[in-house]
Each structure stands twice: as structure tokens, then as C-alpha cells.
């Protein structure tokens, strides 16, 4: 038995065992058992992924396990990337969950779902046939939905969020289902190799239809505009470690789907596919980070940041497709490498950020940045973890995301060489998008970290915060360590990711990486994350020592009260909040965001010149949702109202419908013949 197979089977077996144990073990030990189970499940999945990345692929078919098609599994390097990501996230989340579940999340059902969710996610990239893929996809959707619902008894909003998630994820599923079934209809059987053969004979229109349908489904899973609406609802309402699993691991499977179907099964396709992907990515990146930059709900902000990062990934994927369509496979490999590396980096830092946010949520009971602040002395480890995650999320040097964004920018800069009018117009726009995103990401994470964790507490909850239990800290520690490693030594993952994405386009390593420098193959351009980090840290230490020496010759450091303009103690109400911090940005992007202001002024009854109270409310609704979903929903509702009129109980009417459908179908046959 192959090592990959062993890992996958191990993961599934452990997950099922842990889920069973969750149902049997008494409450005190339950979360520990499930946590260990999840960690083991993640670890064996990750092991399978690493083996698949470094060695040859593996595939197998087990007939009879599923009706009609049986189970078809096949793992190659591309699946390996995603297997490792999901497994690694599972490990961190499993450790974290042991302590986190003590906060009322140790019910049987919720605990049983956690390892099953990880296992289901692991099976999606391992699926090697349409039937298996769809079953695993649905399994993943169901388990995650149940996990989102975990706290529905405590908060009303959870149910609504879960409803949005359920509807959207199933609409996406239907789109994928139709797309893949149309493709499979042209093939001998539903396994991926057969589909590859069949795709070569497809007409461009059919291939385009298949791609568009699957793109809709996968984009909705990846939180891409305009199908992102479930993400900023479900992520904040789900338990934080589930948010981490969803945001860091599950969402990336949307990217996997696009890459698998677009490049692998359909074999690249035409230029407009990838222009569409690139445009969707660009819009999502800017819109997502803009909403994050002005948001005040910590977890909602992180959810929007996921939309942004998946947008960046899709920019890479789309650019890769464009380059491949133009025949420049090396550049395509580079773009896809950047995209996949960003998937890995994003998984690392988003896990860290969501776990830290969960730690804050449980220490303070609040996700509202305006109510937090002053957590640094009270929760030092969480603060450090979030700080590290924020550095990564803002894509600055010393953080991991900088390396992948740098690669992405390099691919775009050299992209003009690929030629073509579409490329020439899209590349500057894409660079501008990435640049605007980078700037706004800095604003977002300076706000989240500075307002949420530094300064002084703005509410009693924040003032009473205590550090989280050790298992939660350990979970964050794992994610933080991965972040640091990815930031200074991308050489550990880049060669395999480069090879995996190079294989998609049939080129050898598009990126050459040594310990000291990451170099582009065939283009000028190199980056040395280790040297940059070393230089900055070294210079910081030198200056710190120098400053201390100079200061020591003169006067000792003293503590003093904050400068309050001499007016007495500063109160929390004088501090800048997240809302006020983001106000200038919100004004700048007024036209895009359309915030709603309400000012109510109550006057004294005696005189309308004297003001009794002024209340001011500011709301920034998700405009895409308003403009797109409301009309669709009301149209659906109108249809629903029209429904009863169509079904008034008359048998003749129903028979008439049947007749009309038959005639219509016959007519269609005649026309299309």
C-alpha cells in the first residue's frame, strides 16, 4: 500500500473513530479526545500531501463503495499542495480546539463534526472522479454547515448566517454538479483521466459552459465577488476554530476546483475564461479589503480579508491562464506558483488570525474593535500572535505573504512579454489592483492590531480580559511558527509548489529557490527573504544597543504620565476607535461604499434651540449585496407568490403542463437537430 493511501485512509479512520468517540466519551474528556483525533487526522492528511508533493502520484478505484460509480481516488502534486494545507490547518485547529471547546462547545454533535469536517476536506482534493468529488464536496458542505450552526442557541444571528451559507453553498454545488455532469456526459466514465480525453473533443462553447458553471460554484466557495455574501456572515458567527478551518482550508478548495477543472480537466481553454477569472479576482481583492479596512467587527474583517486574498490568488490563476493561452508556459507556471504559494501563506496567517480572534472573543465576549483595546498587558501571547498574523496579513516584508505577493507582482510585470492586447491592458490594472490592495491591507491590519490590542481598554470586558488556556496558546503557537518559517525560509515549500504548478503547464521549476534567494527562471528578478529579515533585525538590534549606550551616558529612562494637554486623565472615550481610524478612508471611497448616516437630534421641549441629545449612527452596508441580492430575492419571492396560481388543484391543468413540456421538448429536439 502506497504511503499516500496510508495517510488518507489513516485520516479517514482516525476521523471516524474520533467522531464515534465524541458521541461516547463523557463531557470532561470529550474535547481532548476529539482534539487529539483532529490533530492525528490532520497530520496523516498532511503526511499524505507531502508524500504526494515529493513523490509520484497515486490513484485507486474501489468499486461498490458508492452506488453507480464507485470511489475513484487520485492524488497528484497539485492535490498534494491542498492536502498539506488542509492537514496543517487541521493540526493547529485540533490543538486549539481542546481548550476552546470548554467554552460551551463540547456538545456531542459539534465535537463529532470537527474531525469529520477535516476528513471531508482532505478527501476533496484526493477525489479522482466526478461522483467521488461531488460526494466529498457535499460532505464537506454539510459538516461545515453543522459546525456553523454550533452556537445557534446562544445567538439569533447564527441561524440567519447558516441559512445564507446553506443556500449559497448548495446553489454553488448545483452549478458544479451541472457543469461536471455535462462534461462527464461526453466521456466514457466519470473518472478524471476519461474527462481529460473527452475535454479535448469538446466544442469551445460546451467547454466554456462547463468552465463557467464550475467557476460559479467554485468562486462561491472561495468567497469571490459577487458570490461572497455568505462569507462575512458565516465566518463571524461560526466558532472561531471552525472559522479558521473554513477560511484557511475550505475556501482554498474553491481555488483547487478552478485550477483542477480549468487547467487539468479542460486543458487551459480560451483566453476569455482567464480574463474573467482575473477580473473577478481583481474586483474581489479590492472590494474585500475595502470592506475590511472600514470594518469594526474583528472576525467579519478577517472574513473580508479572506475574500481579498482569494481575489489575489485568482489574479495569479487568471494571469497564469492568460499566459498559457498566449503560449508562455514558463510565465504561466510562475503566476500559478505565486497563486499557490499565496494559498499556503494565507492558510498559515489566516489560521493564526482567526485563532487569536477566537482567543480575544472568549476573553472579552466581544468582536467589536471599538470595544476592545488594551489587551497587550492582559493577553500578551494572544497579542503577539495576532501581531505576527497582522504583519503577515498586511503583506509587508518579514511576513510570509510578502514573498507570494512579490512573486505575483513579478509574474505580472513580466507578463507584458506574453504579448497580446488583452494582456497589455490587464497587466497594469492587475498591478494597480494588487498595489491598492497592499496599501489597504496595511491600513486594515494596523487598525485591527493597533486599535484592538494596543492603547487602553475601551470597555469593561476588555479591561477584565485574561489570557487563554495553554492548549489554545499552543494551537496559535503552531500556526505562528509556520508563519515565521514561511516568511524567512520559503525555500522549504517553494520548490515543491513550483514543481507542482510547473507540472500543470508542462514546464520544470518556474522558480529557483536557494536558502538565500528566490530567483525567477528565465527572467531577471530575485528576492532574499532571509537576508531582508536578517538585515532588519540586525539593524534594529544595533540601533537598540547604540541608543541604550548613548542614553546610559546621560540619563536613565523614566516612566511618565501620558501627555493629556494638562487637562486631567485621558478617558477611553478620547481614544481613537476603529470607526474613527477608518473614517478618512471611508470618506475617500464614499462613492464605492455608500455609507448610511443617521443623525437624530432631540431638542428640549421648552425650546427648539436647546439640544437635549444627539445620536449618530453610521452603517456601511455591503453594497453588492444590496444591489444584487435584494432584487433577485424579491424576484424569487414574487415567483413564489405566483406559484399557487399555477397549481390550483385542477387535474387537467397539471396534465396540460405535462403535455406542454413534452411538446416543448420535442420542439427543442427538432430545432437543435
Amino acid at each position, binding site marked *: 500500500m502506497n504511503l499516500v493511501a496510508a495517510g488518507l485512509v489513516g485520516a479517514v479512520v482516525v476521523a471516524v473513530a474520533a467522531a464515534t468517540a465524541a458521541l461516547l466519551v463523557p463531557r470532561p474528556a470529550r474535547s481532548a479526545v476529539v482534539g487529539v483525533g483532529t490533530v492525528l487526522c490532520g497530520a496523516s492528511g498532511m503526511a499524505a500531501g507531502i508524500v504526494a508533493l515529493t513523490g509520484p502520484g497515486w490513484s485507486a478505484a474501489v468499486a461498490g463503495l458508492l452506488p453507480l460509480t464507485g470511489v475513484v481516488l487520485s492524488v497528484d502534486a497539485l492535490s498534494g499542495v491542498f492536502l498539506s494545507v488542509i492537514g496543517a490547518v487541521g493540526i493547529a485547529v485540533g490543538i486549539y480546539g481542546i481548550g476552546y471547546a470548554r467554552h460551551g462547545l463540547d456538545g456531542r454533535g459539534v465535537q463529532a463534526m470537527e474531525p469529520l469536517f477535516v476528513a471531508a476536506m482532505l478527501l476533496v482534493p484526493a477525489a479522482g472522479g466526478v461522483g467521488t468529488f461531488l460526494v466529498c464536496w457535499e460532505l464537506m458542505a454539510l459538516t461545515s454547515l453543522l459546525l456553523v450552526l454550533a452556537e445557534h442557541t446562544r445567538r439569533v444571528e447564527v441561524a440567519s448566517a447558516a441559512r445564507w451559507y446553506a443556500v449559497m453553498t448548495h446553489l454553488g454545488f448545483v452549478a458544479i454538479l451541472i457543469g461536471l455532469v455535462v462534461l462527464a456526459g461526453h466521456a466514457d466514465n466519470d473518472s478524471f483521466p476519461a474527462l481529460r480525453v473527452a475535454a479535448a473533443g469538446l466544442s469551445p462553447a460546451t467547454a466554456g459552459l462547463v468552465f463557467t458553471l464550475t467557476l460559479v460554484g467554485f468562486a462561491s466557495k472561495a468567497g469571490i465577488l459577487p458570490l461572497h455574501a455568505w462569507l462575512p456572515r458565516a465566518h463571524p458567527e461560526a466558532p472561531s476554530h471552525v472559522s479558521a478551518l473554513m477560511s484557511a482550508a475550505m475556501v482554498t478548495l474553491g481555488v483547487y476546483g478552478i485550477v483542477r477543472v480549468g487547467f487539468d480537466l479542460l486543458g487551459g481553454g480560451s483566453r476569455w475564461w482567464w480574463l474573467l477569472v482575473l477580473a473577478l479576482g481583481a474586483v474581489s481583492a479590492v472590494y474585500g479589503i475595502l470592506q475590511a479596512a472600514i470594518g469594526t467587527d474583528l472576525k467579519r474583517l478577517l472574513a473580508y480579508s479572506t475574500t481579498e486574498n482569494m481575489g489575489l490568488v485568482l489574479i495569479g490563476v487568471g494571469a497564469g491562464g492568460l499566459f498559457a493561452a498566449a503560449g508562455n508556459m514558463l510565465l504561466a507556471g510562475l503566476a500559478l506558483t505565486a497563486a499557490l504559494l499565496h494559498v499556503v501563506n494565507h492558510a498559515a496567517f489566516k489560521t493564526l488570525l482567526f485563532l487569536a480572534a477566537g482567543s480575544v472573543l472568549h476573553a472579552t465576549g466581544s468582536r467589536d474593535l471599538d470595544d476592545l483595546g488594551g489587551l497587550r498587558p492582559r493577553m500578551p501571547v494572544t497579542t503577539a500572535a495576532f501581531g505576527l498574523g497582522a504583519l503577515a496579513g498586511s503583506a509587508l516584508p518579514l511576513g510570509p505573504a510578502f514573498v507570494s505577493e512579490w512573486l505575483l507582482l513579478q509574474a505580472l510585470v513580466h507578463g507584458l512579454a506574453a504579448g497580446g492586447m488583452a494582456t497589455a491592458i490587464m497587466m497594469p490594472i492587475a498591478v494597480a489592483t494588487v498595489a491598492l490592495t497592499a496599501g489597504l491591507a496595511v491600513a486594515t491590519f494596523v487598525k485591527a492590531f493597533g486599535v484592538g490590542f494596543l492603547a487602553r481598554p475601551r470597555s469593561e470586558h476588555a479591561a477584565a480580559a485574561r489570557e487563554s488556556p495553554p492548549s489554545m496558546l499552543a494551537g496559535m503557537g503552531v500556526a505562528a511558527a509556520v508563519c515565521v518559517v514561511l516568511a524567512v525560509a520559503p525555500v522549504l515549500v517553494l520548490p515543491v509548489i513550483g514543481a507542482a504548478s510547473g507540472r500543470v503547464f508542462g514546464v520544470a521549476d518556474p522558480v529557483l529557490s536557494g536558502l538565500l534567494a528566490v530567483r525567477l527562471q528565465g527572467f531577471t528578478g530575485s528576492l532574499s527573504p532571509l537576508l531582508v529579515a536578517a538585515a532588519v533585525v540586525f539593524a534594529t538590534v544595533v540601533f537598540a544597543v547604540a541608543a541604550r549606550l548613548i542614553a546610559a551616558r546621560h540619563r536613565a529612562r523614566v516612566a511618565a504620565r501620558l*501627555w493629556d494637554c494638562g487637562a*486631567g486623565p485621558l478617558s477611553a472615550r478620547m481614544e481613537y476607535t476603529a470607526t474613527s481610524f477608518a473614517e478618512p478612508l471611508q470618506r475617500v471611497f464614499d462613492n464605492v461604499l455608500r455609507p448610511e448616516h443617521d443623525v437624530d437630534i432631540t431638542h428640549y421641549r421648552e425650546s427648539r434651540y436647546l439640544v437635549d441629545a444627539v445620536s449618530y449612527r453610521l452603517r456601511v452596508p455591503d453594497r453588492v449585496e444590496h444591489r444584487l441580492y435584494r432584487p433577485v430575492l424579491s424576484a424569487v419571492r414574487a415567483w413564489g407568490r405566483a406559484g399557487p396560481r399555477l397549481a390550483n388543484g385542477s387535474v387537467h391543468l397539471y396534465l396540460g403542463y405535462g403535455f406542454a413540456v413534452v411538446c416543448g421538448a420535442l420542439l427543442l429536439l427538432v430545432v437543435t437537430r
Partner: protein
Amino acid sequence: MLRLWRKVRQVGTVAEPAPPSGGRVGPAVELAGSVQVRHVDAGSCNGCEVEIGSAFGPVYDAERYGARLVASPRHADVLLVTGPVTRNMHRALRRTYDAVPAPKVVVAVGDCARNCGVFAGAYGVAGAVADVVPVDLDVPGCPPRPEAIVAALRTLTGR
């Protein structure tokens, strides 16, 4: 823009020639030619403020001797206090003094700051500046001439 340029050319330098410096003595030794000044109005009638304004204006140009007005007492070496200290400003002046990192110098500008001037004994006045914070230097006058303020600052910068 052209008009402004012509104006600049026509006017040239308006700063008056600098009288000889007294050299570096006292606090000037440590400050060594650089003095950042935070001005505190402790209850002045704004007469002294006008004169401080002209001391830092183009004609007297206190800045050429290394003195500069700053926005925060944390950045300052010198507190330039004007007016009798009113009850409202008593605590604020004290806190401003505390906020200045050592070495620090307090200059009381104007007669009110030195001995409450015409406001001596008024019910809203807490006392002279010296009653609240230790004063190192006095600039007498009601209001003092800009030259006097500049001269006081020059003893601190030593230029």
C-alpha cells in the same frame, strides 16, 4: 506664483542683524545650541503672545539662534510661560512642567508671569509662575519687547 516670486526677490532678507552672543553659560552648555520651546499661556491677556509671535517672526527671527517652537512638551527643553497662573491653568501648568524631559528650563515672560502684574490678588489668580513651577529666567515688561524675549532665549541656546 510669479507675483510671489517677485515679492520674495524684492523683500530679500528682513531679519535684523544679530547682536553679539553672550556665549554658552548655565543650561546653554548642555543644550548646546538647540532649544525647543513649548509656550504655555497660563492666563495671559495675549499681549505677551503677540510679542512672542514677533520674536519668532521674520524680523527678530529667534529661530536663527537655534530656538524653535514645538507642539508637545515632550519635545521641549524650555517652557515659555506667560500670564499670571489662573486657577484653571494651575494644574495644567504643573502637568506640562512634569511632561518635559530633563534638562528643562522655565522662562517666565512678562510682568504678569513674574509677579502677577496688574492681576495680583484677583480672585481667579493662583499666583505667579514661580509659585507653581521653578522659574529659571525672567523676562520683565508689560509686554516685554521681542528683543528681550530673543535675548532670553539666546542665553539658553548660547548662540
